[in-house]
């Protein structure tokens, strides 16, 4: 691959020639504000925030779509560019509810962060806002289209990554909106990739609602308990309750999850959870008991069978859902503790 040399803000850099200016800048630690570009998705070029000046080019160009070229002299920050960016932010916010106080995405909203950075309140060009009466009735994803800034990331991720194409741009001009066919309720794979890439509060999890944002929220990086892919997830919890699950963009799964990984956690707080050891009485009914009693009862049965019929009259079934440590210890228990190789798990099922 050919390399090209160029300067960004006076800094000379050499990069592969198939990069865009934005990618080249990011690779060398130069941040350029943007809303519609997502690293995993093809560029869109709609938000116009990533504009830069190139020496010899009369108008500012979008760095997310412009490829690098040998000898380019690029400036990412000038007073003029900052004015332009403020202008665009003013316009975006003039068509945005700006109800950050109650918005699910406060604190994780890229639009909010840019508005904060640029000190833009959205008052300067106040005017009509898009309003929508209809709410999407699907059980997973809250779609608040009034907060949508039409960056197109959701459309792209649904097409390019998920291959579902449940949504697309509809209408045009100021009436543009992201829509399903015939504006029906969303009926897709509910992977929530769109939620993951949404830079605002337009797309959130219905499960998340009013559960907590960042104050007092603990984030734990762990692994999804569903299929064998082993996606990296981040569990957000507050007061010992899971309030949402996300995945960080720099994980090997690139922040992408499926419906189960993203929205499949509520079983944890199901009222059906077992909370005490149970022993079955003669009547056939279960009765709650203490750990000591349950363990002693179990151990006594194991001892009895082993003594009467030998260790191979006992068997153990371990679980592909338990950890390596637990599985290791389980078979060690069966082999060394009980004395049998009758131990298996459900790999084949």
């Amino acid at each position: 691959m050919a390399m090209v040399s160029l300067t960004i803000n006076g800094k000379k850099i050499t990069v592969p020639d198939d990069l865009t200016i934005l990618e080249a800048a990011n690779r060398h630690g130069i941040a350029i504000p943007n809303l519609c570009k997502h690293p995993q998705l093809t560029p869109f070029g709609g938000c116009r925030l990533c504009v830069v000046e190139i020496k010899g080019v009369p108008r500012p160009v979008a760095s997310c779509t412009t490829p690098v070229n040998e000898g380019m002299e690029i400036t990412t920050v000038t007073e003029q560019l900052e004015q332009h960016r403020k202008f665009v932010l003013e316009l975006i916010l003039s068509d945005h509810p700006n109800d950050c106080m109650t918005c699910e995405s406060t604190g994780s909203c890229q639009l909010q962060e840019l508005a904060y950075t640029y000190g833009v309140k959205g008052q300067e060009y106040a005017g009509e806002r898009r309003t929508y009466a209809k709410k999407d009735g699907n059980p997973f994803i809250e779609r608040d289209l009034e907060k949508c800034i039409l960056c197109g990331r959701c459309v792209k991720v649904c097409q390019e990554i998920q291959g579902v194409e449940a949504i697309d741009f509809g209408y045009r001009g100021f009436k543009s909106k992201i829509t399903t066919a015939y504006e029906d309720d969303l009926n897709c794979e509910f992977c929530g990739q769109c939620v993951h890439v949404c830079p605002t509060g337009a797309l959130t999890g219905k499960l998340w609602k009013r559960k907590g944002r960042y104050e007092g929220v603990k984030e734990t990086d762990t692994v999804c308990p569903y299929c064998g892919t082993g996606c990296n997830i981040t569990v957000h919890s507050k007061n010992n309750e899971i309030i949402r699950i996300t995945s960080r963009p720099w994980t090997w799964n690139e922040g992408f999850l499926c419906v189960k990984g993203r929205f499949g956690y509520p079983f944890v707080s199901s009222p059906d959870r077992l909370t005490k050891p149970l022993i079955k009485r003669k009547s056939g009914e279960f009765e709650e008991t203490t750990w000591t009693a349950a363990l002693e009862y179990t151990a006594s049965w194991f001892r009895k069978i082993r003594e009467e019929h030998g260790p191979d009259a006992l068997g153990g079934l371990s679980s592909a859902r338990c950890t390596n440590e637990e599985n290791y210890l389980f078979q060690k228990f069966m082999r060394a503790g009980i004395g049998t190789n009758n131990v298996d798990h459900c790999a084949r099922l």
Partner: protein
Amino acid sequence: MTNSIADIEGMEVIFIIGSNTKETHPVIANRMIKAYRKGAKIIVADPRAVPMVKFSELYLPMRPGTDIALLNGMGQVIVQEGLQNDEFIRDKTEGFDAWKDSVRDFTPERVSKLTGVPKDDIIRAARLYGGSRKAGIFYTMGITQHTCGTDNVKAIANLATLTGNIGRPHTGVNPLRGQNNVQGASDMACAPNVYPGYQRVDLPEVQQKFEQAWGKKLSPKPGLTTTEMIHAAHDKRLKGLYIMGENPVLTDPNQHHTIEALKNLEFLVVQDIFLTETAKLAQVVLPAACSYEKEGTYTNTERRVQRVRRAVNAPGEAWDDLSIIIALSRHLGYPMEYRSPELVFNEFAGLWPALGGMTYDRLKGRGLAWPCPTPEHHGTEYLYKDGFPKGKVPFVQIAFKEPAEVTSDDYPFILTTGRNLYQYHSGSMSRRVPPIEKHAGRAYVEMNRSDAERLSVADGDRVIVSSRRGEVTIAVRVTNQVSAGTLFIPMHYAEAAANVLTNDALDPTVKIPEFKVCAVQVTSAPKAASLATGG
């Protein structure tokens, strides 16, 4: 998987056989779609027109249970057209000539008859796969859950060996594991014939090593597999069973038989997070912590060992499984004292060289794929880079066999089972997720439009599906996803459990049951039955 998930993106050809990747491994499917966007050609061989077909260059709608015929047939074409990797065959394999003779009569014409796949498509598939040196094969239970499951896997390996599509980036034989830690559970030797790290129990030197490590005399006799244990329990040879986090009543074939077997036990203890169908049959039920509530490691389908961390505390008096095993062991008189999961990890990492270089500290971030023998080693993104464990890879001659159960006048449909996107396994977790239940909470049997018309049933009608082993009442979903003569029932729904119907015939080598093929009949459900079984 011999290769990694990220590796998929660079493949030229992706051959998916017996895997509904888009629904059972959605995030792996994402990688395949990314590869597709970069120009990769995807071949899907499956009795059902699974969602990945949308992205496929070629779809081979094969009859269930005819994988070997298809794979051998593709091999035959590859040899016929000279697409095999001669250098690889010469340097790294053995038994090529004999194998070549064995597939001679798997001509496209014959294979087409056996599989139902058009002759030209078999040839095209062979050319696509054989013509690329960056081609990966992917499969799941659609391959393994057959009486000939082991042979299916070997037939796949033959193809990869034939083309040299193994041991390099963007290639490989890639089984996709179904559960979060199947790989780990296998690695950790929750299997009757091996110790951790696939070290055979019947080898004296291995036995000695573990006796030394564990300070206990160990049995040299291989034990029973899950299905064999169930049979043994049924025959009252097995008296006591300890089940940790499993629900065989729903997940094992021939449900009536399984329930009878568990009832025949003298003692059953089940350790789980819910009172599952299996736990209800137990004498003792021990409340466990779920995945979000404990520390440890999982090993995913690409052999990547990753850290699991506690996000919330387990409810009430539920304990994590590790603590339960430790406490139970103490009560049994074989104390195993570990203050943390990390110490357990260190113990088995010391017993299996493939994990020798791993520590919890090193697993921070993205984890490490085994083998990772030394502290300096960066893990193994793809296997067999430096050759094969036994020196040369053997070509294995595989004969085609019909499935254990074939259709008859009484049972004219082939039933195949599997998962859907939303639910997971026995459903003990996913069915307790309200939005998932709302969206995908009803059992269904998929039936081809033409069959539905013939039987005069409409979408949503309830029918009785019965096999030689049992029957379920279930709503029909009319679709062209299954071909005529085939039915599909997802395994998740206890109220219409697919495994009431399935056959517990086993693969002779690895004892895996034939979930993917059994013969059934369909009759319309009387109105009363519809009401009784409800939603």
